[in-house]
């Protein structure tokens, strides 16, 4: 048995796997970063990028296991060993003068093999550079608020698609920062005067919700530069059903639940009423809207009576 050839091939095999492992890890990082950047642009949590990265990792490992042929990889780098090495390996159990001379010849040629030649320097450098660039892009888009640049990537995907992703992954997809759906527009103040008077970042003239420290000057409502003084779109949940809720500023700055409770007797509300903040208003049945409208009508009447 031609042990020298086999032992040398085993050496190269070990080395080859280390190189493959390095390349696979590098490639997986690139895939992860690329997906993370795309997802970040789409407002989907970047952690989801780990899924395609793992899938890629598995495919690449399986592909390399099936594809890797040590003898072939040596022969590609050292054409002088072409056919010699394969013949010596295939005839490793044959012992005659010709085979032995072939083994000696191959061993001598294999002494000139350099480990580093199996590492594709160009490929490694290019991938490393790519990794650095991707890391830079990823960090940049996390520091710079891309929504400020006016991109609306949500519009590209569609709301249903994002909902599906949400359902599948369980992650909340951020889509309120500057991205507003057509349906959400009804939650905005109808004119800018409202927010100015109710108070925004710079304060308002009328008392608003959670009024500021100086009465009459507003200032308690609003967050950052959000033009909607009521913050996020809201809906109420009544008897397990989500319904749209519009808060009109002219009705006053605060909603007193106590009054609502009193009205509950008059307003024919079902029991166990509770409010829930939701980012996505859902389509409600007509009867619920009517109910809400009546509720707020009653509320307004009570307020007027008190005044």
């Amino acid at each position, binding site marked *: 048995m031609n042990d020298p050839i086999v032992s040398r091939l085993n050496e190269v095999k070990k080395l080859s796997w280390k190189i493959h492992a390095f390349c696979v890890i590098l490639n997986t990082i690139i895939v992860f970063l690329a997906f993370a950047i795309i997802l970040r642009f789409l407002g989907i949590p970047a952690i989801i990028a780990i899924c395609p990265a793992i899938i890629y990792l598995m495919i690449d490992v399986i592909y390399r296991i099936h594809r890797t042929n040590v003898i072939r990889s040596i022969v590609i780098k050292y054409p002088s060993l072409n*056919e010699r090495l394969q013949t010596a390996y295939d005839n490793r159990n044959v012992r005659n003068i010709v085979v032995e001379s*072939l083994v000696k010849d191959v061993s001598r040629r294999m002494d000139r093999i350099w480990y580093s030649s199996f590492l594709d320097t160009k490929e490694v450098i290019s991938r490393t550079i790519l990794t650095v660039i991707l890391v830079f892009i990823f960090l940049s888009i996390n520091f710079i608020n891309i929504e400020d640049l006016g991109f609306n990537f949500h519009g590209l995907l569609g709301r249903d698609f994002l909902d599906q992703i949400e359902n599948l992954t369980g992650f909340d997809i951020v889509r309120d920062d500057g991205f507003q759906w057509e349906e959400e527009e009804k939650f905005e103040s109808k004119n800018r005067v409202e927010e100015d008077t109710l108070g925004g970042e710079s304060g308002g003239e009328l008392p608003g919700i959670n009024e500021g420290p100086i009465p009459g000057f507003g200032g308690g409502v609003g967050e950052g530069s959000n033009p909607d003084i009521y913050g996020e779109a809201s809906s109420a949940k009544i008897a397990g059903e989500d319904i749209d809720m519009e808060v009109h500023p002219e009705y006053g700055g605060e909603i007193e639940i106590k009054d609502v409770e009193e009205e509950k007797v008059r307003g024919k509300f079902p029991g166990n009423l509770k409010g829930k903040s939701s980012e996505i208003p859902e389509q409600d049945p007509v009867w619920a809207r009517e109910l809400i409208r009546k509720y707020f009508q009653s509320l307004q009447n009570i307020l007027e009576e008190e005044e």
Partner: protein
Amino acid sequence: MKKRTQTKIGGSIWGIRETNERRDALKEPISLIDIPNEKEDIKRVYHKMKDIYNEILYEMKRVIAGQEKVIEQILIAIFTRNHALLEGFPGLGKTLMISTLSEIMDLDFKRIQCTPDLMPSDITGTYVVEERDGRKIFKFEKGPVFTNILLADEINRATPKTQSALLEAMQERQVSVGTSTYPLDRPFFVLATQNPIEMEGTYPLPEAQTDRFLLKILVDYPSMEEEDRIVDLYTGETIPKTKRIIGKEKLLAIQELTRKIPIANEVKEYALNIVTKTRPITDGTAKKYLDYGASPRATIGLVLAAKARALINGRNYVSKEDIREMAYPVLRHRLILNFESERKGITTDDVIGEILKEV
């Protein structure tokens, strides 16, 4: 000057370290001399093989101008203990080539000029009545087949019965006459020639017999320069002479050595694929142009011929190039063209070329 920082195999990079076994293997390379059970003459011949071949070629060139490929293929047939069929126009030096080879190899050489009236006994020999001590006894008079190199000139002019007399001699290397069997000398080769012209009154060799020839060698016209040299060689005062390079023992050692040449599985599969593709059982070139393909004997012959080619080229392994190169002489007489390809003037070499492209 830039210093190389690479690490050779056996060094350590990324945790791979030189093992003790590996170090020992490097310190004590395998001795080529101390291989048990290896005959001394084989060892001697192996180490001088390239020189032997070059010397044979040199001596041949003193008599034959050009035709290196033909000489190489004849030697391949001899080194593989097989027979060859030479085809070419008259006057191209086929007979001279073979007789010169027999001189160089110090082998017994006999020639049969085949004609339609040639009888089998004219080849194998026959019993003659001999008078010894007043008694008449039958004695076997050996025919020309009892030699080392038998040149059967214009073999296609002999009748099928006579041609078949060569069958047993070629295959079994023995002759059976009556109830007696006579073994032939070793080495034994039949080198037959045939002319591609004047086919009237000829008997094309039966398939079974052509299959017994390892190679069909095409002898082509020499180039202008070669012909110029031929004229110089044979119009001068002296006729060129050759000297003996190897004897029977060395030749037998070379034959044994040829079979020791290792072949990679991949190369063997390549040869198998080529031969399989000549069989018109699947769609492809073979089905398009051939009626019959090559037999497993062709595969054996192809691998053997490739081994011999590797040996004479000083290589200790068979390459795909050897297989490709030997595919033509090994397969060309084993493929039977169909009517369509004959009508189109396609030759077996064309078909082999197509098959080689496919594989």
